[in-house]
């Protein structure tokens, strides 16, 4: 069961600010998702190979050949703030 504490933790991990109202709303939704996984857990998987990846493929590679990168101007064009070629972000912690 996902309680208020868990919800606050999940919110913090995603850096989402959740209002009391949000918490009321999301808790039952997340719990119903968890319940559904509970259903899946009941399936008998005896002798079934684990599925590691949804695509039935392996070994897709790229050669070690350089491509043209973006220019610094292009790279910075989506950043809200920049300084001396760096992207500027609020200080962490």
């Amino acid at each position, binding site marked *: 069961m996902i309680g208020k504490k868990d919800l606050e*933790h999940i919110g913090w*991990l*995603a*850096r989402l600010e959740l209002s009391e109202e949000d918490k009321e709303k999301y808790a039952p939704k997340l719990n119903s998702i968890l319940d559904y996984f509970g259903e899946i857990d009941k399936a008998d998987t005896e002798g079934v190979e684990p599925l*590691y*990846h*949804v*695509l039935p*493929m*392996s*070994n*897709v*590679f*790229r*050669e*070690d*050949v*350089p*491509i043209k*990168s*973006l*220019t*610094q101007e292009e*790279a*910075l064009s*989506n950043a809200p703030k920049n*300084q*001396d*070629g*760096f*992207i*500027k*972000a*609020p*200080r*962490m*912690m």
Partner: protein
Amino acid sequence: MYENPDGVMIGLEVHVQLNRLKTKVFCGCTTDYHSDPPNSHVCPVCLGLPGSLPVINKKAVEAAIKVGLALNCTVEEHTQFYRKNYYYPDLPKGFQITQYDFPISSGGYITIEGEDGEHRVGITRAHMEEDPGRLVHEGTIDKSKYTLIDYNRSGMALLEVVSEPDMRSPKEARRYLDKLRNILEYLDIFDGDLEGALRVDANISIKGGQRAEIKNISSHKGAERALLFEIVRQKNVLRRGGVVVQETRHFDEAREITLSMRSKEEAHDYRYFPEPDLVPLKISGWAPAIKATLPELPDARRLRFVEQYGIMDDHAKALTSELKFAIFYEDVAKKVDPKMAAVWVCDVLKGELNYRNLTIEAFKKEHILSVIDLLLNKKITEDGAVDIIRTLLDKGGSPFEIVKEKGLLKVEGDIVSTAAEEAIKENPRAVADYRAGKEKALNSLVGAVMKKTKGRADARTAREMLLDRLDKS
């Protein structure tokens, strides 16, 4: 047997940047960014822009296998990538592509010189991941208002080599790091001189306590210092009846201390899940072919040097502990007496280079050959040879010029003989002292001979000639 009285257990996680590749691990941006402006080697993939898709660099996988094999690991049948989720500005996507329960190789070891002789340190695993970007803080990390980000480093191929907690002292940890770096250099997969090429996290515990993880160690010396500090800290906590808790600590390189990081940061909840954009790899079949191309590694070369050149094991060890030195020595040893070459390259040249903080590139092979040649032909004294090496390092030039300029040509025997005679005549007190049994008085007479010949006499010859005369009369 090493007792390990404090029950010290150290395990290391070393991040190796595969910076000899031409491109990053999941995109074609070049790795050659070290002297370029920030954010000038980036693309939608390494900037984590929506809709971009990573594709793995085949050479990076080959390099990872190479390292795994050199560390005696098994290359796994099935390997795949995961997303490690955490929120920090050096990760533009909000997650790092790394490996989790299917690393590319595992179960190896490195042999180091331990506290009680040869010691084996287990390698738990070596897994692939992408490097985060570089953060620059204005002022100090805890006072700056902003974080500046350069994503040129973002997406560089990293190999994280995780050891077992098999090291029993900070010294062993340092030797492990030296050995690992040495092996990596031999494999030609990374340039250890580039910034950020090798980064270390250390786990350390002592008997009766939990382990601490120390982050932010950027040098081998730093690792040793951080661990030494940490052992003292943990022992003090226990002595005072406290509890050593499991925690992450930050190494402050300038102050040489470790500091506890805030608990919130510690609440790791990475929510690993398989990376849907990268399909699994089945590459264990590549191992035999790659193994066949592995170069001679340090331990093998050390043994060969002893056998092939008849040099002492200590010399062989010192010479092979740096690839460039090993190559330099071997080139020299092929042309002159290998034993003499070992003495002059290892004992003299290496010491003079270390003293000046220089690398072997600062000295020409032809020059050491000339110096050894001059010595073999008895043209110069050993002191003269050292003088030439020092002058070459400090001022440059050529050995022959230096010999001429400094007048280092060894003087003939009869000149030494005359000087010895004069020295005896001019220093009656020293002669009397010597005859009275004061052996040390002979040194001042040798000094007098050297002064008269301006240091060009061979000290041993001078001594013999003096003794000869003193004993006769």
